[in-house]
């Protein structure tokens, strides 16, 4: 995407290194001169936010492991030891626990931005699929991390989730015992979850590198959905994206800090402050909030196997999304009112399913879960494939530059087709 590198090694050492391992040149190319569309809005800042959340989770996690004991008899007490005795332990532990929730808030917004602006469409299919892989790894990591606390919800959540695998015919029981390393969730389960919980974030990191690589091959999408065509459509990553991402990160950190310092247990479940007891099941087992929509889908049908297949299907369908959407234009902003209605209904439905996920599968909740599940799948399997064949999209601008100039109307004179080249009077626009 980028043209010939403009990197010029300054010192002798930089020249020496550049001739042997041009890593500085690569970083310069990818994160300084890399061209980004000039019309990106703040919904495009969640990639950077997710990056710092991943790093934050990894660093706090490594530090927590220095004090945590992965044993069924001691895990819960070691968490309390961190909360009470370790220097700043309460801060590190809350950062990690609240950080997991923040990570999911950011990833859901990131996904919904992709869904709205058609970021998954050709030629970004691999980019999208890698994103879904990251999402799956995140879910596995978050689930196993929650078990490590070894509270009541940890234990019974682990029991319920691992029992999903028992619904498969013939191999089910063998599979679950293999997962458990015993005949119930117990110390061997905790130990393997601990091992994998430490491993998976680094796998996420690896896939993130591929994800960013794929992004930098195709370039970013933008709200118009029109590909970059000319130099004036873009601005260099640094300082433009860097400073804008930084501002978005600070806003996000404000939200994070608000929950971290003033509502640290709001997003968790009170029962997880009770140590795991294999003899007492909580009256009402619910997963963490970020799994609730999928938990609703799981319980929408009376068949256990059917529920598990539906739940896995709800993620699997995302892999096929690039080929399910038949729209001629990429960005939802240029699609018909029908698409917009369907999209926002999908978003509301996701929240609705989340709320239902926190409710028991009884009474009117069950048909509500079923309707929500049907719409979830219908959006991907019926609406997106069919709508694109019939709808008439709005006329697209010829280029990003044209769209920007049209939006800013009277400022054509100063902005012109030269993004940062408006040397005439940049300060006057403050």
């Amino acid at each position: 995407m980028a043209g010939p590198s403009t990197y010029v090694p300054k010192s002798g050492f930089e020249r020496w290194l550049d001739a042997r391992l041009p890593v500085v040149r690569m970083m310069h190319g990818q994160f300084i001169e890399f061209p980004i569309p000039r019309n990106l809005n703040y919904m495009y800042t969640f990639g950077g936010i997710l990056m710092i959340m991943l790093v934050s989770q990894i660093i706090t996690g490594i530090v927590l492991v220095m004090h945590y004991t992965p044993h069924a008899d001691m895990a819960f007490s070691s968490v309390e030891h961190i909360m009470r005795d370790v220097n700043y332990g309460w801060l590190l532990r809350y950062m990690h626990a609240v950080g997991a929730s923040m990570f999911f808030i950011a990833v859901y917004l990131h996904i919904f931005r992709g869904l709205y602006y058609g970021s998954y469409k050709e030629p970004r299919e691999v980019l999208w699929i890698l994103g879904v892989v990251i999402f799956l790894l995140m879910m596995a990591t978050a689930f196993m991390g929650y078990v490590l606390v070894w509270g009541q919800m940890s234990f019974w959540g682990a029991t319920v989730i691992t029992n999903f695998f028992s619904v498969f015919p013939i191999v089910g029981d063998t599979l679950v015992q293999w997962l458990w390393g015993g005949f119930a969730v117990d110390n061997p389960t905790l130990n393997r979850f601990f091992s994998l919980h430490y491993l998976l974030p680094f796998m996420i990191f690896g896939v993130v590198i591929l994800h960013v690589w794929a992004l930098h091959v195709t370039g970013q999408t933008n709200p118009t959905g029109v590909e970059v065509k000319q130099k004036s459509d873009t601005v260099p990553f640094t300082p433009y994206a860097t400073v804008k991402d930084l501002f978005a990160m600070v806003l996000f950190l404000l939200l994070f800090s608000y929950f971290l310092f003033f509502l640290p247990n709001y997003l968790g479940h009170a029962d997880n402050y009770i140590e795991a007891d294999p003899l007492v099941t909580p009256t009402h087992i619910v997963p963490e909030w970020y799994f609730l929509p999928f938990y609703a889908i799981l319980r929408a049908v009376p068949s256990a196997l059917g529920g598990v297949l539906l739940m896995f299907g709800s993620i699997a369908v995302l892999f096929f999304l690039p080929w399910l959407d038949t729209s001629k234009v990429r960005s939802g902003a240029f699609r018909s009112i029908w698409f917009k209605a369907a999209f926002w209904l999908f978003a509301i439905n996701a929240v609705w399913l989340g709320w239902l996920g926190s409710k028991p599968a009884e009474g009117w909740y069950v048909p509500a879960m079923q309707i929500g599940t049907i719409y979830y799948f219908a959006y991907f399997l019926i609406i997106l494939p069919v709508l694109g064949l019939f709808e008439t999209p709005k006329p697209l601008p010829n280029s990003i530059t044209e769209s920007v100039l049209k939006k800013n109307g009277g400022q054509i004179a100063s902005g012109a087709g030269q993004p940062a080249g408006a040397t005439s009077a940049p300060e006057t626009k403050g």
Partner: protein
Amino acid sequence: MIKLSTQAETQHDMQDEPTRRDFLFIATAAMGAVGVGGLAWPFIAQMNPDASALALASSEVDIGSLQPGDQVSVMWRGKPVFIRYRTEEEIAAAEAVEVSDLPDPAGRLASDEEALATNEARSVPENPALILMIGVCTHLGCIPLSEAGEFGGWFCPCHGSHYDTAGRIRRGPAPENLPIPQYEFISDTTIRIG
């Protein structure tokens, strides 16, 4: 292919009006650096001994049953503390050395940093036959063997440090005498270390 000239132009802009713009950028960067520094501190401080470790600062031991020639090791802050009821010969051997001849003339008492390494200073005041010290070689932290070495005191098998019967280094790589922690008698036969 897109060639970028924008960045150079931006820098050009900055040169046009250095003061306000530079001040803003520098203030932002400086505050960001302060933030990162502040954030780093909890991650560093968490490795310090935690509140429960700091609270476990004392151990108690009953020495009522010790006979001459007996030695007990008690754990204090994760390290062994030797308490030895020395025999007449051992005491005599310890008395027979001039402090000026010792590789380390300092007493190494936690209670008195000025003290010299005389046998009297290093013995337990309430019963000079007793000696109480941290049983960790001052060289690289191994645990010395008792009634061993050329001076009949302690001998560290790791790198051959010889301590005498007052726990003073006499030969070998260890730089200092075995240190003596704070302790007190809380009854006639019970010592609290720490």
